[in-house]
């Protein structure tokens, strides 16, 4: 049901990403999520699957984060 081992490892790698720490499921509000794809319906979206209620949803990437620069972090 969950696909290949490589696919699972791929999702697990992205699911631990601190950028996605505050994402919760819009249906059940749980945070037990996995990243299905870094690109959802549009490239500006990440596709998530909720492990609690199994629904999938898109999440907009831009939350104002900037890459490190001479000004410091975000």
């Amino acid at each position, binding site marked *: 049901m969950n696909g290949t081992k490589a696919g699972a490892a791929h999702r697990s790698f992205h699911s631990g990403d601190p950028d996605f720490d505050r994402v919760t499921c819009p249906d059940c509000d749980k945070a037990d999520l996995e990243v299905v794809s*870094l690109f959802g319906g549009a490239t*500006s979206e990440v596709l998530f699957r909720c492990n609690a209620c199994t629904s999938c949803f898109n999440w907009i*990437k831009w939350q104002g984060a*900037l*890459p*490190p*620069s*001479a000004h410091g972090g975000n």
Partner: protein
Amino acid sequence: MAYKVAELETSLNSGLEADFVAIADTKLVLGNWYAECVMNGRSLPDFAGILGMCTVNYGHTRAIYQHLDRHGHDYVHLERGRGAGKIHSMNLLDQPPEGWEEFIVTAWLAELATWQLVSGYLGHSDRSIAGIARKIGEEAYFHLKYAHGWMHIIGQDADERARFLAAVDQRYPLALQWFGAEDNDDPVHAAGQRDMPVAKLRAAFAAEAGKVGDHLGGDPVALPAPVPPPTAWRDDARRSGPLPNGLFEVVRFKDPELAH
């Protein structure tokens, strides 16, 4: 006090203009790199991601050309009217990649370098300029994340890692050169246009590029030493020489009457 809209169309500082033309032209060529290389992607997310990065970079180019157009430049000339010697893209992008690892190295360095230079305008008093800088940063954040993801994967294979590091040795000095010499005067900063001297932006670029070993997931990697710019270097263009003919053929916009 009443004013006319036309009075707002002031000319920009020439150093600021030069920086933004260099950033916009580099992003124009980078967008073409993504368009040319997309079918070498390894998966559907690569296709989606690379095409996304392609259009975003074209969007940055367009936003900057439009801003310059509002300050005395001609958008049509910027987009279509310049020859190979007048396009100020980074020398880093002159030669095509020979493989996937070199493509990732080059895209990573180009995204990182353009972000570092434009970050010097985040606090600019013209909110359009500061806004363009911030938007580029927000989008470069995910472009760099894409490159870092691939570096994580490449680092797990000895051959791919070796090819990646060979490309870093070749390409990193070209990206560093874009910022100019370490001890150059910086009239743009002195004029209060950029809130950071370019030497600090250059150092920030080198510091981020220096994390390559972390991204690959192995031992620290020593970056190659800076290479002095060639004698034909043009400070205002941040490059030497014209675009190679083959690249210009890809990049240039076709005559409008032929573009049907």
